[in-house]
């Protein structure tokens, strides 16, 4: 069954999009990630204009992070204060990101930027995760590299001015690096149509030593607000948010995520991280091929946008 998308201005098969978003939702539920890094490229692959895919993807991530935030909120596994600081940075990053997105689009470099960012970001994170989980899977006896404990020397950036106490995370730290992390995630998220959970979670654990119990909830909290802001900003500045497409993506991914979350309960922790690492790294490799190999079609056509 075909349905015409009013903003993307093309008909799509409703079942194809539903199935695809359910599959992405399944993976995101399975691994506890947002899945934006799969959704955006798949939408582009199906012929949705890249700008619409990114802008609409932010709406879908808003929905899926809402579900997560509510769950963690009930379990009190969420540091609102820490999340609030990240959101403040995230909003700044989102403004910068949407501005960057619009100017790259005008200049015709948007697709290249999208591809390059996917390669570097997913390649780095996926590669690190892969190394880490391969070590954990094949050398389980080897003691893990000791993380600096709470009493050890602190990172240089933790002692910067503007210290703040975070009771729930049991830490006191300068808000400058937290804001910087928020800005980075907000920027990357609004440009690439991803939530950025796969960056926030490890960053909070390794750099800020936030207790694992509150990390995921806090990360989702930050993603929820940044992505909601990104959706509105994309809608205002480039009119690329397709509400019909968003609705299909949301329904598909929400259902898929629930099935995924149930399936995920039976997988062993190390295998779990290895699978996720392979997935993230695989997407990076695919994008590397996309920009590294000679494309089948060298020419691309676009309407020339005049600056107002």
């Amino acid at each position, binding site marked *: 069954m075909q349905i*015409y998308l009013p903003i993307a201005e093309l008909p799509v098969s409703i079942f194809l999009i539903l199935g695809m978003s359910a599959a992405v939702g399944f993976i995101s539920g399975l691994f506890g990630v947002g899945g934006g890094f799969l959704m955006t490229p798949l939408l582009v692959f199906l012929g949705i204009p890249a700008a619409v895919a990114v802008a609409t993807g932010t709406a879908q991530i808003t929905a899926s992070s809402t*579900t997560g935030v*509510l769950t963690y909120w009930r379990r009190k596994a969420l540091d609102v204060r820490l999340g609030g600081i990240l959101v403040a940075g995230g909003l700044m990053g989102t403004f910068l990101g949407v501005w960057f997105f619009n100017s790259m689009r005008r200049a015709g470099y948007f697709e*290249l930027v999208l591809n390059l960012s996917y390669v570097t970001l997913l390649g780095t994170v996926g590669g690190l995760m892969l190394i880490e989980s391969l070590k954990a899977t094949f050398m389980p006896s080897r003691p893990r590299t000791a993380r600096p404990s709470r009493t050890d020397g602190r990172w240089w950036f933790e002692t910067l001015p503007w210290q703040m106490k975070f009771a729930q995370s049991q830490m006191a730290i300068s808000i400058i690096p937290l804001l910087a992390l928020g800005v980075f995630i907000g920027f990357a998220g609004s440009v690439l149509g991803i939530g950025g959970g796969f960056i926030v979670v490890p960053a909070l654990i390794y750099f800020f030593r936030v207790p694992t119990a509150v990390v995921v909830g806090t990360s989702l909290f930050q993603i929820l607000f940044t992505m909601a802001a990104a959706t509105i900003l994309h809608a205002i500045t480039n009119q690329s948010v397709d509400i019909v497409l968003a609705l299909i993506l949301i329904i598909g991914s929400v259902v898929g995520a629930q099935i995924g979350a149930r399936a995920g309960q039976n997988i062993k922790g190390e295998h779990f991280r290895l699978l996720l690492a392979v997935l993230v790294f695989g997407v990076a490799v695919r994008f590397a091929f996309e*920009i590294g190999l000679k494309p089948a079609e060298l020419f691309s056509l676009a309407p020339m946008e005049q600056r107002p």
Partner: protein
Amino acid sequence: MIRCFILMLSMLGVAGGTAHAERLITSISSSRVLITSSYSGAELVLFGAIERDGSSISRSGTYDIVVTVKGPAGPMIIREKSRQGPIWANSDQMKYADLPGYLAILTSRAISEVTSPQLRERFQIGLMENVVARGLNPAYTPARQMVFHEALVRLKVEARLFQQLERGVVFLAPNLFRAAITLPATAPLGNYEAVATLYADGAPLATEKSDFEVVKTGFEARTAAAAFGRPFLYGLSTVLLALAFGWLANYVFRRD
């Protein structure tokens, strides 16, 4: 010399409209193509009759019809990727002024049999003729420009947004014809113009315009109007929708 004279005369005919006795009467099957949620392209039919009166000279050859359908035009840019270090990225580009978003050239015979290359270039009968006339980058050599022209036509033809059909116009009777206009789902929205021109012995005799428009309707129209007219409210509603569904999912699938 005589041929040239006839040609000039026939052009006056096109301009004046009354110098020749032949007249074209056309009618299009629909003046509005409505985009609904199940829209997947459209087909329109243009019917036409050739009217002759007593003063029409009897002709040895047959009549030919060329129907040119043009969609809303806008400036376009085509970019070429080339290897830059380890990656392939857009480098050279060429701009076009007011290129029709949709262009169909429908003829009753092969275009080369209908009229001469000079006239085709002059009246932009043909896809390439339309593209060449709108190129905006004189800095490139003609050969280099041609590379862009050809790529542009190829991309547009692949998307079915440019069509050139040699049997696109069918004569039902010696003086009666029909032309089928196929719009793909991605054809741009806006005003279209279908121009039918009557040719005999390679010269244009009469021409007739008809218009139609492609518009969103109902929900699609309201959604697009909201997205462009009230972007903040539209964005906010999308976010509220997302929040509502997120909350609903949490409520429905709640496990603790």
